[in-house]
């Protein structure tokens, strides 16, 4: 219920807010605001010095007006004045105003820093808290310069109150993030590490956050925190529910602190000291065990808190990647979550399992869930959950299940959201290439991709299929036959015409013996699509035609007629015109030998980094686990046999 609380009333503020809410129109609101602004302006300029209460009230009104979305260009001085009040309520409003409406006026900054300095030195924990929070909220360079030296001292001083330590730790964290050069490591770092043993779990929480950030840039400096963090975590996880009274949340002991400690441990490799390592392993076992116990409460808060710790523990297990038994247990636990009632858990399980898939210890365990994941792909109603399922299928893919996974992904592609189609196309293309034992399967897969999602098949993908066909004698005939058949479809995607045109131009001779795919039939088929295609495709087709002239002398007159037609020779597009003119000339003047030399079969492409992989990485961002490429150590049966196909990213002029 709306309460105008006892301590600081500010009736005027409440009335003003009510007035604004009662305004029937935007214009009325603006009018009321302007009236108030004029009133406040005159009060601030007035001869009589305002008392603290009034100043506080007006500054608060200005803040409210600002938060409604209106610009405020005065009041900063008055807000800064409030900082020097010795009344908490006045200070609080002053600090709030300057934190929200940050001003870069150097005089104001000087005054603010001065007020902060006084409050920090005041030994009044409430005032120190306000000052520290202001620095943490604003975090400007000037504040860092003024206070970065002071805060660590406050943090580690023996007589600092707990709540002040909490705020100081996080304040220091903010300054470090914004201006790391102003927070050099020093004597204070080892004392900060010891805060992990503090009695007050709020202090430990704040210290853990600070150490985690500092440790990333200064791991050596903070490595002693590992054993302390393990002890602390161990004590929390094994505590009875009556131990941590204030910090037990729905029967889960200190869940957020547990998560933070687990995160801190992820900054380091597995502990070297066997005792510490053993204790940590026990701890993780306990967390996994607790997840199997019947819940102490039916409330979702209980299971969320418990599972928050569980998922973070699993993250740590994956990060260490050194205990096969823990990895397999984690996998089994996640496997159970895959079929949980709650969408959140299914989502998180799919996401977490993706990282598990790249560990050699758990890869096989992950694969056992393939049917569940495929089912998720088909039945989940939240598209982001289906996306995680796709990611997981991609990550768990290897020689043993590639055909099945590619088939499922192709099937999903037919109904997938447009926003994610391109990514799925790239993944299917990568998998098909990587795990092809039989390259006819690879060719079929790519042609299927084009058929199902042609618009999302980027150049990298169809260039690649052509490169592979060119590099592999064993699949050239099959490719020619298959594209020929695919082109028969009444409406085929332009990318298919490009691929088909190129392949028939190179290898049409391999199927020309069959009367159903005689040279003239091949030409007619391609040419029937000509007028539907864009300029680059037509250019490609013209090149295919001149190759036909070389391959099949009997179709030369037909092709020459086409090249000779006005629509080619006088085509508005320079490239098409040039090709038509030059190819026509070539076909007329060149001897068969010269023609054969000029239009010789394309040589194999050299090996280079896959451009499809590069494109996927670019799309997903550098932090994506692409499973196949990063972190996967392939062993034994999973080794990808066969030569690495040539992935040239050269711009071949097709």
């Amino acid at each position, binding site marked *: 219920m*709306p309460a105008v609380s006892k301590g600081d009333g500010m009736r005027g503020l409440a009335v003003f807010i009510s007035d604004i809410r009662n305004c029937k129109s935007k214009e009325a609101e603006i009018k009321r605001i302007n009236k108030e602004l004029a009133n406040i302006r005159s009060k601030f300029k007035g001869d009589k010095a305002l008392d603290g209460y009034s100043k506080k009230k007006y500054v608060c009104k200005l803040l409210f007006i600002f938060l409604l979305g209106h610009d405020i260009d005065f009041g900063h001085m008055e807000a800064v004045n409030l900082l020097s009040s010795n009344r908490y309520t006045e200070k609080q409003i002053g600090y709030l105003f300057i934190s929200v409406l940050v001003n870069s006026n150097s005089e104001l900054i000087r005054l603010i820093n001065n007020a902060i300095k006084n409050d920090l030195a005041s030994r009044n924990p409430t005032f120190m808290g306000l000052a520290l929070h202001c620095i943490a909220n604003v975090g400007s360079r000037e504040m860092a310069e003024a206070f970065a030296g002071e805060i660590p001292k406050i943090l580690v001083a023996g007589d600092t109150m707990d709540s002040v330590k909490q705020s100081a730790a996080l304040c220091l964290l903010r300054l470090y993030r914004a201006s790391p050069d102003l927070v050099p490591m020093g004597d204070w770092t080892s004392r900060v590490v010891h805060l992990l043993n503090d009695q007050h779990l709020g202090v430990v929480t704040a210290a853990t956050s600070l150490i985690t950030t500092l440790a990333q840039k200064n791991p050596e400096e903070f490595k002693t925190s590992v054993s302390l963090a393990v002890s602390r975590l161990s004590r929390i996880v094994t505590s009875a529910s009556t131990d941590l009274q204030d910090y037990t949340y729905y029967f889960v002991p200190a869940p*957020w602190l547990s998560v933070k400690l687990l995160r801190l441990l992820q900054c380091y490799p597995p502990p070297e000291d066997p005792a510490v390592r053993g204790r940590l392993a026990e701890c993780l076992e306990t967390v996994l065990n607790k997840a199997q116990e019947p819940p102490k409460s039916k409330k979702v808060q209980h299971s969320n808190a418990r*599972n928050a710790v569980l*998922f973070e523990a699993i993250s740590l297990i994956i990060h260490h990647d050194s205990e096969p038994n823990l990895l397999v247990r984690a996998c089994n636990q996640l496997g159970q979550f895959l079929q949980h009632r709650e969408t959140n858990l299914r989502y998180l399980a799919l996401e977490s399992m993706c990282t598990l898939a790249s560990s050699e210890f758990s890869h096989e365990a992950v694969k056992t869930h393939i049917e569940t994941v495929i089912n998720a792909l088909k039945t989940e109603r939240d598209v*982001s959950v289906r996306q995680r399922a796709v990611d997981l299928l991609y990550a768990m893919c290897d020689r043993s299940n590639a055909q099945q996974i590619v088939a499922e992904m192709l099937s999903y592609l037919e109904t997938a959201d447009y926003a994610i189609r391109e990514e799925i196309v790239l993944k299917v293309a990568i998998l098909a290439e990587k795990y092809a034992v039989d390259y006819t399967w690879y060719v079929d897969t790519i042609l299927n991709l084009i058929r199902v999602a042609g618009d999302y098949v980027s150049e990298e993908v169809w260039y690649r299929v052509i490169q592979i066909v060119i590099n592999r004698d064993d699949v050239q005939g099959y490719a020619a036959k298959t594209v020929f058949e695919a082109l028969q479809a009444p409406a085929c995607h332009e990318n298919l015409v490009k691929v088909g045109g190129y392949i028939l131009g190179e290898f049409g001779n391999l199927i020309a013996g069959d009367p159903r795919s005689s040279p003239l039939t091949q030409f007619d088929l391609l040419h029937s699509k000509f007028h539907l295609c864009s300029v680059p495709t037509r250019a490609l087709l013209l090149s295919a035609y001149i190759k036909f002239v070389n391959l099949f002398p009997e179709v030369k007159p037909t092709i020459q007629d086409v090249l000779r037609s006005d629509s080619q020779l006088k085509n508005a597009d320079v490239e098409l015109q040039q090709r038509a003119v030059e190819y026509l000339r070539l076909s007329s003047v060149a001897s068969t030998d010269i023609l054969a030399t000029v239009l010789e079969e394309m040589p194999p492409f050299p090996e280079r980094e896959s451009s499809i992989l590069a494109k996927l990485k670019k799309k997903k*961002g550098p932090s994506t686990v692409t499973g196949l490429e990063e972190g996967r150590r392939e062993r034994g049966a999973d080794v990808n046999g066969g030569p690495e196909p040539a992935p040239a990213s050269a711009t071949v002029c097709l």
Partner: protein
Amino acid sequence: MVWIRFILIQNRAGKTRLAKWYMQFDDDEKQKLIEEVHAVVTVRDAKHTNFVEFRNFKIIYRRYAGLYFCICVDVNDNNLAYLEAIHNFVEVLNEYFHNVCELDLVFNFYKVYTVVDEMFLAGEIRETSQTKVLKQLLMLQSLE
């Protein structure tokens, strides 16, 4: 580095009841973010998760009556931990304002910042004990 980028409380109509920023944005960017967040969370329902990808981050959110509580965190952050951090925060507000409603957040907006700052600071969780937070808030309430 991983931390909270912002916390928002919005109503269904898109009015912001609290915006706490832990990263520098200018006013136009803030407005744009607010609108985007609103657009993204209000189309979701019970069949969706409480997590949604948002630019290079993610938003953990929960709806309480007419209000959406949204925390924007890094993609690598712990979803459930923040989902419950929201709930913890809401329970504190509820206790502090005695069955909190949207109007409480409007009329006492300057106090809501105090509650936030007790529980979150510098983009990190600061204090999770409801007992301790409420004790502190009541103490501050008694000051002049």
